[in-house]
């Protein structure tokens, strides 16, 4: 093997380009980081991540992590990350449900239903998200009554323009047991359905899966929660002075941001659902119909499973958009990672480069996790040709 054939070898050249690109990228990164840090030293700006261990001193109205204002800035960072993830996960779930409902309504043969769904989709697609956020916040939530005129929900929860104050258990121990029971019963259902599927393949007999599912998924958890609720002492909110004291407050910023993300994203998901369903060849549902299946069964057994394959990649995009759009919460003081870390912490410490890099990393990591999950799902439902 002489030198010339070595150079002309495609594999060798491919490797060469790959390595050259990596060296170039690493070199550029090193250059920019060094340049920035040298300039910061020259300008007298402190750099590095030591600021993370300073006391934050910032009060956050919506905390899931047990943070208090005497904790350090790193703890504040996690409060922001948790709040971003909370609103993202719930918004994705609700937007998917609403989006499917609207998408299927759009295809309905019922004229009014289909027209309303179509109008909704057109409306959503032509209005900026910021409008939704401000509409829900200032238009809907701010129109709720002042604390003294709160709407009482069974005398234990109170709705006003400061949010929904709900009772909080004094000791969460019983709820941990209830959660364990729920988990066990769900795993039980999963095992039962796997066994039922195998049995059907073997014998062709249907198992009473509906009854088992009802029991394990609904009744057992409901009983567990009811038991935990009755066995726990509750911290019930009472009106004192300006507002209700005690309990847990679901802040209006969370509700407004969630509502905006769900109503906005559902419009796009509806279009993906419509496109996915329309991409399934008409012959499929005709064939199913010829076998005597009813329209509902055709949709759930024949059309949607095939449509899901088309829908998954664009759905992934929408889910990533929800994650990114959750940063719009900063416009209405929802304490997400952008608002708390890139807003309050950055202003207090002035460590712009470090804080922006960490915030970018948060979105990158969560985003890649969402993509990975969706890619795994996509591979699982992909058409397996035998």
């Amino acid at each position: 093997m002489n030198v010339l054939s070595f150079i002309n070898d495609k594999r060798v050249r491919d490797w060469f380009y790959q390595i050259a690109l990596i060296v170039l990228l690493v070199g550029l990164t090193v250059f920019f980081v060094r340049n920035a840090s040298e300039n910061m030293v020259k300008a007298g700006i402190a750099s590095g991540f030591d600021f993370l261990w300073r006391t934050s001193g910032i009060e956050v109205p919506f905390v899931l992590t047990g943070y208090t204002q005497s904790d350090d800035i790193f703890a504040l960072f996690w409060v922001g990350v948790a709040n971003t993830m909370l609103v993202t996960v719930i918004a994705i779930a609700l937007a998917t449900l609403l989006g499917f409902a609207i998408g299927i309504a759009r295809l309905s043969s019922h004229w009014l239903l289909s027209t309303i769904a179509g109008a909704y989709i057109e409306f959503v697609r032509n209005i900026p998200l910021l409008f939704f956020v401000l509409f829900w916040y200032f238009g809907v939530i701010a129109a709720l009554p002042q604390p003294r005129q709160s709407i009482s929900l069974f005398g234990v929860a109170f709705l006003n323009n400061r949010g929904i104050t709900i009772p909080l258990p004094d000791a969460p121990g019983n709820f941990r047991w209830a959660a364990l029971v729920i988990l066990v019963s769900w795993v039980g259902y999963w095992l039962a359905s796997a066994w039922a599927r195998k049995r059907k393949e073997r014998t062709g007999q249907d198992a009473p899966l509906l009854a088992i599912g009802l029991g394990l998924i609904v009744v057992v958890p409901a009983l567990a929660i009811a038991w935990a609720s009755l066995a726990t002492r509750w911290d019930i909110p009472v009106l004192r002075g300006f507002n209700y004291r005690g309990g847990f407050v679901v802040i209006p910023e969370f509700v407004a941001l969630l509502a905006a993300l769900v109503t906005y994203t559902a419009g796009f998901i509806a279009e993906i659902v419509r496109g996915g369903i329309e991409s399934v060849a008409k012959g499929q549902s005709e064939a199913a119909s010829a076998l005597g299946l009813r329209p509902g069964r055709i949709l759930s057994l024949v059309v949607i499973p095939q449509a899901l394959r088309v829908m998954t990649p664009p759905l992934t995009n929408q889910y990533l958009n929800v994650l990114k759009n959750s940063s719009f919460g900063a416009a209405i003081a929802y304490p997400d990672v952008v608002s708390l870390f890139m807003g309050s912490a950055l202003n207090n410490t002035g460590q712009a480069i470090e804080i922006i890099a960490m915030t970018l990393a948060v979105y990158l990591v969560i985003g890649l996790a969402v993509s990975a999950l969706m890619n795994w799902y996509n591979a699982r439902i992909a058409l397996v040709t035998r």
Partner: protein
Amino acid sequence: MTIRILGAAVLLAAGASVAQAQQLAPSPTLDAVKARGNLECGVHLGLPGFSFANDKGEWSGLDVDYCKALAAAVFGDANKVKYTPTSVQQRWPILQSGQVDVLSRNSTITFSRNATLGLNFQGINFYEGQTFIVRKSAGVKDAAGLDGASVCVAAGSTEEKNAADWFRERNLKTTITNFQKNDDAIAAYDAGRCDAYTAGVGALAGQRAKLKNPDEHVILTQPISNDPQGPVTRWGDERWQLIVRWVLNGTIAAEMLGVTSKNVDEMKANSKNTEVRRLLGAEGGFGAMMGLSNDWMYNAIKQVGNYGESYERTVGMGSPLKLERGQNQLWTKGGLLFTPPFQ
């Protein structure tokens, strides 16, 4: 021949060293400002009384007046300023990165900003105390009466931390909601989201006008903090810092010495007071020591006025804000304002 050459060389060397002695320390910022032909001044997005642009885009206010005085000192023309409105979030990076030459924007001087952000604070043009605006109907007399209230505030401001600390130290339970901009925070307060909004007393006086019914609200008189504010520069370039500091000192000194925009010509021509004469460039050559013309403060006072004139016009009794001089009065009249001598 040799002697003459030697003599010439000696003379040349002497001349060169004299020239060297007259050369000022380099000031990249001043050179850049002069080459550009205008001053770049970072100001507040819009705070009536401090920095506010009218519908013709003309800026006015106490902080804006400082920019004008500085431009008048450098160029002899108070209008050679380009204003860059900055939010709470942008203000430091905009100054650090050199987009503005000086920041004059209602920002509190704090230790950690001074120590870690590469910033220098060049004196105080406004002593401010943080307080709260509440609805009259709430019947609150002082900040302690806000127990249980929810408070709107601009995120990352000194007010955010001050308020959290103040309530925690007194074991009072408040909820603090942090908005990205002052305007968003006060809009949420106005919409009923919060029981109170907190900011400096000067800012509150200006922002009160933005509320739907200003008369239904009251500003609590007792402040919970002391927030001195003044022009800010980057680290390095000591000569530019000197100019920024002494233009501010000059406007305060002018008030102490009784020099106003009305009598400045007469004072320059006839005053026997040597400090007045040095301030206005009639003697001493003080401007040239910093690389400016000697009538630097004459121009600033003639075109913008002394500190007291500026205060009355922008935030004082001659303005809609109607703030008392209070701490911002000269020390000789019971306030805190003071300037080292022009000597």
